[in-house]
């Protein structure tokens, strides 16, 4: 029997991993080094994690996502806007990748269908889908690493570095609404694991930058972007295998769009109290 409701940490994490990967794809060459990302990103993740945990405790203590109080409604409304902005950002990000990689605008046409589908979807469908997509992502990651295996050289990590870590600029520390909406989104009792989500994003960002530097060295030209790592992957027979990995990523990006729509629905119903009138279904098993 199913015990609890809400989103699993792996479902929330998958969306964040997807958006972090998209950032890495779009990252311009020469903006940050692997050393910088690792050394400066770790304290950043730690700070975000602590902030997330603190906000979570406050939200649980003062019932901040409840439609019963005006503060709850206010906070929910603010998060509704934040999630909305995040949704728009994710859609634009996915559309940009689709346009760039596949010369396709089909996402715009499919968006209404995705919205309709996600609005009606139950939370457990998101959780189970996330589990399967993690496998897809894992397979994609392993395939990518296998394809890049012979091209990684550790000497490239020790190229000419700027004198100071700060010279190349701070690695981007992105704030996502998921970090702070854990009491609303997470399965009950999983808020603490949820607070570690900033480390997931940090892990992906650091891993990607490290792999990029191992394969291509420090990219000096801003004309190159992070997606060059996927383009470096190949198996000899195919002329453009990076498209396959982009397809894998696209699946997670569409998942994030659906997930964010579910979050908006949750905020609309739980946080703002706009629950639909329940019609009793006769004899549902």
């Amino acid at each position, binding site marked *: *029997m*199913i*015990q*609890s*409701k*809400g989103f*699993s940490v*792996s479902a929330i994490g998958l969306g964040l991993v997807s958006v972090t990967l998209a950032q890495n794809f779009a990252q311009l060459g020469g903006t940050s080094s692997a050393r910088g990302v690792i050394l400066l990103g770790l304290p950043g993740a730690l700070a975000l994690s602590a902030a997330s945990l603190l906000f979570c405790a406050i939200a649980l203590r003062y019932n901040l996502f409840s439609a019963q109080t005006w503060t709850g409604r206010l906070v929910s409304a603010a998060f509704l806007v934040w999630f909305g902005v995040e949704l728009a950002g994710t859609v634009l990000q996915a559309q940009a990748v*689709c346009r760039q990689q*596949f010369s*396709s605008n*089909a*996402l715009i*046409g*499919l968006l209404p*269908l*995705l919205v309709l*589908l996600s609005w*009606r*979807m*139950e*939370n*457990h*469908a*998101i*959780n*189970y*889908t*996330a*589990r*399967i*997509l*993690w*496998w897809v992502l894992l397979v994609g990651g392993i395939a990518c690493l296998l394809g890049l295996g012979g091209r990684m050289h550790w000497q490239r990590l020790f190229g000419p570095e700027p004198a100071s870590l700060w010279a190349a600029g701070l690695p981007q520390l992105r704030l996502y609404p998921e970090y702070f909406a854990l009491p609303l989104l997470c*399965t009950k009792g999983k808020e603490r694991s949820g607070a570690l989500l900033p480390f997931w994003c940090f892990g992906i960002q650091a891993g990607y930058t490290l792999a990029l530097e191992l394969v291509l060295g420090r990219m000096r030209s801003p004309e190159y972007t992070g997606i060059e790592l996927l383009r470096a992957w190949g198996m000899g*027979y*195919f*002329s*453009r*295998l990076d*498209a*396959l990995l982009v*397809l894998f990523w*696209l*699946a997670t990006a*569409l*998942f994030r769009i*659906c997930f964010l729509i579910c979050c908006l629905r949750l905020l609309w119903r739980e946080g703002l109290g706009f629950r639909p009138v329940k019609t009793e*279904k*006769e*004899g*549902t*098993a």
Partner: protein
Amino acid sequence: MQLGENLSALDTIFGGSADYYAKQIRLYGCPGAIIIFDGMASLEGLWRLLLDAVNRESRPPFESQVYHTGAEVYQALMHRSDLPAQSAVIADMDTLIMFLTAGMAILLLDGCDKAIAFSVQSMKFRSVGEPSAEGNLRGSREGFTDLLRINLSLLRRLIRNDTFTMEAAQADTTMRTEYVLCYCRDKADPAMLEKVRKILKTAKPELLLDSSYFVPWLLPSRTRLFTPVSYTERPAVAAAKICEGKLVILVNGSPSALVLPALFAENFECLDDYATTAVFSSFLRILKYVSFYLTIFLPGVFVCLAVYLPELIPPQLLYKITAAEMATPLPLFAEMIMVILILEIIREAGLRMPQSLGHSVSLVAALIIGDAAIAAGLMSTPVILVASITSIAVFITPSLYEPATLLRLVVVVAAGLAGPVGLVAAFLFFLFSLSGVSAMGVPYLADRPFPQRPISEDGMIRQNYRTLSRRPFNIWQKRRR
């Protein structure tokens, strides 16, 4: 109640029926009548039963040879004789009709407001044979028949414990069809059992010709592609499911048992899995999963790659596909849709035709479509090859035929119209339609938390049967969402 009144009432109801048989007799001086339906109950069996009872009678039920009233005879036959009458009290016309239509002989007595039923059924039925739709190499060869009581005996023979229960009831339908809910008391979830019992009781199907007719009442949710119930015609499979805590519904007149709830992974399992080695059955299961995904995604992926992402196809293969496509008038997407639909038409025609004609139709269709269409340049060989592979692959998991066929078309249409984005969206739609399904609180997808327990003991691959038997599976075990 006078016998004549009862007989005339019955005559009004069944008098026009050719199989209605009423014979007036006299019992211990009391007028009575035996009522049966010819062909359902056997008069010969009834007399044999009566004679046997007379032979075994230690002492007569009445000391004196005088005329007795109907009530006295009823009391004597029911409580003071060795006559094996049914213990149920038949005090109204509805109950009488229920027993009569079940093939029993009914004894009516003058001046008595109750009737006695004798179990002397002699119905003709299809013999217990091997089900054609569920092939197996090892294990039982028996299959359910159309007669409910025979099916129940097949189950009882396999499950010989004291917790196995079979609850019979009549559905609220025009035909008053009998159905049975089977479960193990110590394994089934009591709350869910009560829920199902209530639903079956309140369900009002117009007709009940198969257990699947109950599904819209059991799972009345919105449109779904995957239905979290399974069907079996094998008593051995049904017995195994009952021992896992599931509920089995059997309907009179149908050999198909409905198992509730079902898991997606069970579509890839069969009895043979547990009779062979773990390694080989795991290999077969992986093959089945691959076939299932092939049948859904292969045509769509082919269309998407050939039309939108030719860079992902090795050059030599791409040249061949392009050359074949150049010779055909239709675009690849339309061609694929056409071939898939034609193959479905051939399959349906082969299935519904008389068996003697079915093979000929399939052969002619295959020759015409496969050979003539290519020769005429209407279709290309790669498209026919891909569509044929998918059509064959779907038969590895016949229970998933309906969703697989619909999803295949959805994927082809999405990939053909929207390219890679459409393909990925169709994949996501497939995942959502699979993971959104649950029945009675049990999700259709078995619990596979990432990454702690990536593969369960008896999922895509399975462990040794001895290891599996250490922790018996129960469908109601606690799961996370």
